[in-house]
């Protein structure tokens, strides 16, 4: 009840001015630009996470080197670090006074960078245990039959990891769509350029347009709902195949 009633209030408020009012806000150029940017960046971030998250999990499980324990611990850093601090740290290194000469502040690249930072652990932590449990016999068999490492990875490892990768990607996507703290400093929140949906919502609240804020929120809630259903379907599918 703590959870449902407030969210119902958002949905009700969004149609305060009728469906037309809802539609006018959601399709206004600024809201549309914010929603499009949020979706596009979230998709890109989810895809990059799928590749690098799996790679990092692979290195952590299969590779051996000194300091692996430390690397494994660092993965959780984005969960422990307050998001506003993440934003400030990225801005310090990749912002106007960058010692590396890389300045991406107030661009869309910066938005993606911030989201990559906060969503890093999802895929790694979802793939790692599955990879750990994965029986190496199948790979050994494939290799003894003459398969090259790449072939055995593609045909044997990847299909086994796919449900875990997808579950992690879905979580990362959901987080990327709703993220605010890490984006707020480094993106500059320029309307039509780097303003993401959650920043747009805050703007609407601060200018007193609660119905407008609620309308865009409802669109995001709908997206979140789809992702939740997908995750549960994947978990169910995974359990069925375990039997």
């Amino acid at each position, binding site marked *: 009840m*703590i959870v449902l009633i*407030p969210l119902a209030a958002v949905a009700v408020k969004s149609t305060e001015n009728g469906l037309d009012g809802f539609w006018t806000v959601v399709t206004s150029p600024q809201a549309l630009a914010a929603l499009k940017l949020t979706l596009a960046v979230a998709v890109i971030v989810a895809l990059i996470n799928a590749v690098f998250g799996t790679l990092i999990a692979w290195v952590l499980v299969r590779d051996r080197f000194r300091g692996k324990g430390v690397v494994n611990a660092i993965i959780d850093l984005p969960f422990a670090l307050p998001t506003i601090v993440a934003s400030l*740290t990225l801005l310090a290194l990749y912002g106007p006074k960058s010692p590396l000469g890389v300045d991406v502040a107030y661009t869309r690249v910066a938005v993606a960078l911030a989201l990559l930072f906060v969503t890093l652990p999802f895929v790694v932590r979802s793939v790692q245990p599955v990879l750990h449990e994965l029986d190496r016999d199948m790979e050994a068999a494939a290799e003894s039959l003459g398969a090259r490492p790449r072939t055995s990875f593609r045909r044997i490892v990847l299909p086994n990891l796919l449900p875990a990768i997808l579950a992690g990607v879905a979580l990362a996507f959901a987080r990327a769509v709703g993220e*605010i703290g890490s984006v707020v400093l480094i993106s500059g929140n320029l309307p039509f350029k780097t303003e993401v949906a959650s920043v747009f919502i805050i703007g609407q609240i601060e200018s007193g347009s609660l119905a407008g804020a609620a309308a865009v*929120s409802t669109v995001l809630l709908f997206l979140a709902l789809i992702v939740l259903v997908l995750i549960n379907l994947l978990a169910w599918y995974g359990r069925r195949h375990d039997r």
Partner: protein
Amino acid sequence: MIARYGPRAIALGYLAVLLVLPVGFVFYRTFENGLAPVWDALTNPEAVHALYLTLIMVAIAVPANTIFGVIAALVIVRSKARGRSVLNVLVDIPFAVSPVIVGLSLVLIYGRTGWLGETLGDQGIRVIFTPVGMALATIFVSLPFVVREVVPVLREVGDDQERAAETLGASPWQTFWRVTLPAIRWGVAYGVVLTTARALGEYGAVSVVSGKLVGETETLPLHVEQRFAQFDLTSAYTSAFVLAGIALIVLLIMQMLKPKSEATG
């Protein structure tokens, strides 16, 4: 050679560029101008109040979510009540919903024109723009952690020992304290650590609900942003440094708890 070291190099390089370098650099930036300005920023009344308020939020949200989390996990795993699978899905909602929307929903309910806001306002109770609302927001966003950590442990442990305790005449209360709680304690502890981290750093939901009144409803993460907006970089970096320091401690505790929770699980 490439097949062996290639993935390692790429993975470590990615982590270095994305995580290690930026966070390390903030530590450098904080102390760039020596210790004196850092000390000034640290002892500034606004910053002290922000830290104090942040710790209060943690002190409210963590016990509330620990108690709720353990009860909810018990209901999801042990009871046969109808609606427990619904509860299982509902618990995840704060993870899937943007913190900004959480803040907005609280404003819509407890705000001046909100569903409950008018009634409460008539009795002189204000929630929005006060620490009460901020505590509600913090509880909301950090709700799932304890449940999510305890549910798998409860499933693994099974209910054999609890049944044995009951046959031997233990009351449900005794069974919980003597059998169930010791079995799930590492799961609970790990959940508490994650809840603490989230409650400390929450920005989106709290920023909507708090009204950002300096020295009144400003938590440390909000203080970082406010100082940054005022071009007071040293203060912003110092507050960020404090938060990052706490985050590192949290990370350490997480590592210490992990092997144990895996051993019992």
